[in-house]
């Protein structure tokens, strides 16, 4: 019984982190699905989202706004606006001019952008990590008396529910709206889509904006969950989310969700049963193994190389 409760605790922690990873992974997978490049700076956009959210929350506290839902919603909106503008600007400055060149060129440009953004925040906000107030406290407890208790905090529920809402909205947007249809068309065949009158530049910019907005949501949620942020906090999270995207099959949106959940659970199982220090090793190892044995991921389509 004890073991089972412990196991459930790890499972819940894993699902929480995993669903936030999935939110970040969407940005990688959508961009890759459309222009076939790894947006290396995506982790930094997520970090900037977290910073903006913290700035907004602190600012609102100074102004005396205390009603929690209002604070969270304003913080969320501000973070999404700043992050999506950042995503748009990054695409415009660093990616659009090099689109269609040799594969390595956009990737190096993206790495440069990632280093730039990391240091931009580092110089502006300092390198120390800053405490993120835990706005949502409390939770449910399972299990009896003095034995091990499985707990689900309200924070975890919030993360899970928010992710679920975002994913549902995204799926509806992709499958129903005009822009969503154009997104799918562009990802299938960019040349044909532009022949049929779709403004491909606009659609590509839109995918960057959507990905960045979801990353900002994840930034707010994970910032609150971990309780502190620093300028380097996007780097590892970005790598994890990329792993999640590859795990699920890069280019596939349901794959990113599945990959995020699997990665989160395997990570929390490692830190629960082995050692917390090696959880990064496990996720990178997982990434390497997947790329070696099933590069298309769980739900991805095989890519045919044409001459």
């Amino acid at each position, binding site marked *: 019984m004890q073991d089972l409760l412990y196991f459930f605790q790890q499972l819940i922690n894993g699902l929480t982190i995993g669903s936030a990873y999935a939110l970040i992974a969407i940005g990688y997978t959508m961009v890759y699905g459309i222009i076939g*490049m*790894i947006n290396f700076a995506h982790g930094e956009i997520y970090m900037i989202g977290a*910073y*903006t959210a*913290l*700035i*907004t929350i*602190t*600012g609102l506290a*100074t102004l005396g706004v205390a009603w929690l839902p209002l604070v969270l919603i304003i913080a969320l909106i*501000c973070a999404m*606006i*700043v992050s999506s*503008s950042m995503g748009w*600007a990054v695409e415009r400055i*660093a990616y659009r*001019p*090099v689109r269609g060149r*040799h*594969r*390595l*060129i*956009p*990737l*190096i*440009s993206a*790495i*440069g*952008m*990632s*280093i*730039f953004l*990391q*240091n*931009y*925040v580092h*110089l*502006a*906000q*300092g390198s*120390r990590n*800053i*405490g993120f*107030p835990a706005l949502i406290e409390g939770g449910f407890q399972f299990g009896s008396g003095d034995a091990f208790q499985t707990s689900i905090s309200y924070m975890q529920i919030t993360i899970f529910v928010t992710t679920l809402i975002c994913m549902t909205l995204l799926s509806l947007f992709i499958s129903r709206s005009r822009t969503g249809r154009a997104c799918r068309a562009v990802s299938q065949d960019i040349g044909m889509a532009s022949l049929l009158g779709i403004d491909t530049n606009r659609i590509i910019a839109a995918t960057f904006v959507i990905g960045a907005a979801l990353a900002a949501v994840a930034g707010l949620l994970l910032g609150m969950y971990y309780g502190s942020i620093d300028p380097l906090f996007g780097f590892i999270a970005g*790598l994890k989310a*990329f*792993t999640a995207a*590859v795990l699920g099959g890069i280019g596939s949106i349901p794959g990113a969700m599945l990959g995020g959940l699997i990665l989160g659970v395997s990570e929390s199982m490692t830190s629960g049963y082995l050692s917390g*220090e*090696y959880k*990064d*090793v496990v996720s*990178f*190892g997982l*990434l*390497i193994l997947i*790329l*070696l044995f099933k*590069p298309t991921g769980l739900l991805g389509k095989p890519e045919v190389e044409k*001459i």
Partner: protein
Amino acid sequence: MATQNLRHALFCAVVTLVISYPILGLNLEAWGTNVVLTGANTTTVISVLLAAVAVFLFQLFRDRIMGTLGKLPPISPFANREPMPQAKWERLKSAFLTLLIIAGLIWPFVASRGAVDLSTLVLIYIMLALGLNVVVGLAGLLDLGYVAFYAVGAYTFALLSQYFGVSFWLALPIGALLAATFGFLLGFPVLRLRGDYLAIVTLGFGEIIRILLNNWTQLTGGPNGIGGIPDPTLFGMEFGRRVREEGNTSFHETFGIAYSSEHKVIFLYLIALVLAVITALVIRRLMRMPVGRAWEALREDEIAARSLGLSRTAVKLSAFTIGAFFAGFAGTVFASKQGFISPESFVFLESAIILAIVVLGGMGSQIGVILAAIAVTILPELAREFSEYRMLIFGAAMVLMMVWRPQGLMPMRRTHIELKKQE
């Protein structure tokens, strides 16, 4: 058209404000357990506003500005000249390299101790960049975990000297070979992957090595690192004031000169110089051998190269292994120079710096890479007050380079045959 332009310009200006004001203009500060928000000073706010205005004006008159810029005469008088004939270029290049080496030999005897120490670091970066140049520039494999092989070289020497008392000269080939073995073992499975996946896998590998070094405390000392790494000896002569090992003599006593701590620094510099020259020469030869041509062929067009009978795995693996070998070299010298190593020295940023050197210098071009290594290492030291902006500038330079001049500052020139002009 005009209204559309105006709208676009306004939009760009607003985006500039949105992405810069919250981060630059509002600073988070920790006061005990509380976080407070302070406004930045007026200069920052004014520069943010000015930046937005500049973006607005540029976007508004973009077509006209670009048009005028295009009509201006080229800034460099060499922009439109004919490429230099190959024979002349080759002569110039070897003359330049010889001069560089001679200057390098004289340097430690005229420069100050600190300058020589810095130059040793420059030479280490030259070795690393030349090695990575084989992998990224010639073979076109983006390796983001290059620093892992550097770490293998450094830790091999540190551990061997700590547990078995192995000297620098024995550890140098062992470290390099071990790094090459790591490169081979990693390369074997991952080289089947496509370019960008390869980049991520090597990045993951680099992180794994660093995490292992950090956590395997019994062996590597974890975050505390390993200290007391011995200096290299010259035919059994040590450079310390007192002899550390039985049977060795010390350098200053043998030659009957006064002890000076500078001897050791100069000696290390000369070792690094010799090794860097060896690295450059070996890679220069390799580039002209069939294997070097094969690297480039595979980079340019993999399918065509394979259909001409090149083995993809063998060619890529050789590039990867050779790159790792020289990283191991550099790592051993680094460990010996520092006397102390910890996982802190082998973070991803280090890989990014080496990559930036290769990219700025011109992928594939040896002279370009050497000059870039010198510039990238020395410039932050000269402009101390800008040193915190170093990485910011690197990042921006990498992006700008890819956008405007992806071939680098000194692009590689391929050896080719020229037809004789008919009289």
